[in-house]
């Protein structure tokens, strides 16, 4: 038998008995506190603590004050962007008041236009901050479009309903909680938002809660300010989880789509759809592959 094999045998046997020694040593009632942390179970207990339900984050606003809004996000290239801008609380409250008093029996395109108009000062504050940042970073062409849209996509999706007491609920294959807040788990749900379950851009900028149309109209308003040919598109979509239902997307014309495919013709212009509901690296201009069905789309605001 070779010396090498003798060494291998001795080493392996020693490892076995050494490990057994360590295990037997640990069976003794000493030194265990060094290995075991009793605080960890307290951390686990914290998981059972009940979360605060946020019904309406606009409730604390007072007229006459200026508030600073921070917005940070990453674009498709994973470049980080951050802007801060000041808005008057009065402007946000006025936009909310305008919405709640609004006559709901109106064409949806007009509602969107009116909501954009009532939020003009707040949208403008955001536009100015973005414009400064874009100039500073010397962004051009498609990078500017991606910059604007990813900013709107980034706040987590929040379900908006126009009936009171509709949240919590089960819908579209998900559980929606009675929490009107942009929850990171995407289960936020806001009750009784009239008319048409859409927030004004000013309200969205302030509280960052929004679903497809709330986000699309802000993206559209910002695009317009940046002089792009944009539109708000409305139509029907469905995937394997949800039944076909009305959906809203941003439309952009005069720009080559990243994923060519669907388009909406309006007044001789071709508008390519852009999913702004939530951030996803594949949700680029022209991509509608996230939807199995995509039909009856039209421009409602441009």
């Amino acid at each position, binding site marked *: 038998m070779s010396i090498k094999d003798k060494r291998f045998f001795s080493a392996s046997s020693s490892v076995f008995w050494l490990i057994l020694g360590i295990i037997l040593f640990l069976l003794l009632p000493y030194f265990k506190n060094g*290995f*075991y942390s009793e605080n*960890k*179970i307290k951390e686990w207990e914290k998981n*059972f603590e009940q979360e605060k339900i946020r019904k309406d984050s606009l409730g604390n606003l007072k007229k006459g004050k200026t508030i600073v809004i921070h917005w940070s996000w990453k674009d498709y290239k994973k470049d980080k962007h951050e802007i801060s801008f000041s808005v008057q609380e009065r402007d946000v409250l006025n936009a909310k008041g305008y919405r709640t008093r609004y006559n709901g029996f109106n064409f949806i395109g007009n509602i969107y236009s009116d909501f954009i108009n009532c939020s003009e000062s707040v949208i403008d504050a955001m536009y100015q901050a973005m414009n400064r940042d874009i100039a500073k970073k010397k962004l051009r062409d498609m990078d500017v479009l991606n910059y604007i849209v990813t900013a709107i996509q980034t706040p987590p999706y929040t379900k908006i309903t126009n009936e009171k007491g509709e949240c919590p609920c089960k819908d579209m294959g998900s559980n929606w909680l009675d929490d009107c807040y942009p929850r990171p788990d995407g289960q936020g749900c806001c009750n009784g938002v009239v008319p048409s379950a859409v927030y004004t851009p000013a309200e969205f900028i302030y509280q960052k809660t929004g679903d497809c149309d709330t986000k699309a109209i802000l993206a559209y308003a910002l695009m317009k300010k940046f002089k792009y040919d944009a539109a708000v598109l409305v139509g029907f979509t469905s995937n394997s989880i949800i039944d076909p239902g009305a959906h809203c997307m941003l439309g952009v014309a005069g720009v080559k789509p990243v994923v060519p495919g669907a388009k909406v013709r309006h007044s001789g212009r071709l508008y390519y759809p852009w999913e702004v509901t939530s951030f996803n690296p594949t949700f680029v201009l022209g991509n509608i592959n996230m939807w199995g069905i995509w039909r009856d789309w039209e421009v409602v605001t441009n």
Partner: protein
Amino acid sequence: MMNLGKYIFGFRDEYLNKVSETERAEQTYSYNMLSLMFLVLITLCIVAGIVYGLVIFQNWIFAIICGLLLGGVSFILLLLVFFINMTTRHAELYQKMTNMKEVFAEYDDHDFTDISDEMALQITQQKKMELRDRNQVTETPKFHASNIITTTIKVTLVLVLSCLIANGIEIFMFKNLINADIAEIRNSETIKKVASINNDSLNYLEGKNTLAKWTLDVVTEKETTFKMIDSYSILLTLETLDRGLGNWKLLLDFLFALLFLVPFILVRKSKRYSGGVFLKEVALSDIATSLMFYILAQRKCQQVKQIITKDYMYDTYIKVSKDVNQG
């Protein structure tokens, strides 16, 4: 020296009659060591089984039955893994043992009709000695793609077993600290508050409420005396242990995995086993026994054939023996 290997691996002294005293001592030591390691592992399996039994049943009798059951299953599985790895590195012996036709072919033309049992034994012994003399050098087994699959299955089996045993022994090691944590859970006002909420459907508390109720259900009642762990649930016990130990648990699990893998690696890689004289002699004995029974079977065949040739005419199928006709 006590021969432990005899009881586990069938390491009998008779196999080593033809080898030197040094070699015999070395082989005895190696198999004793392996048997001892095996017994240690089985003992750990029994202890782990008792721990699991105590948590589930809170009863010593059922716990001991659990321990014996887990010990028995582990005994069979580990022994199987050891035996599968115990193949001799004497290539010719291995080849002949797995395909005896080669050995038998050498005796195809022999007439065994009048051979006695003693003579058959002599032929067998001669073959055995010839093979023993010819196979002095060991060879490293050749690699085959199927080795990857079989080794993966064997290692997975050992690792699954080690993981099971590691958790049981760790519960035993840290039982007092786990019990302190479980007492904390039982007395937690936060958990009690969430558990007491009814009609909370579709709320985000839905999952928490169920988990809180389940948690309070599986810890033993405050007044009940428990046997080892203050809970009926292995899941809660493991959750508590996992959180308490943190990364140390990974280290302990790794030590247990190593403890179970070392004997396995030893049997596979050390020449004391696969290249050892014991496995060579076992292979020789196996070949000799098969050859002995082949010769005896051949003898009987040839005798029967002779009688048939003498008593029957194959062409006509007519019996010609007077004795039979008269009968």
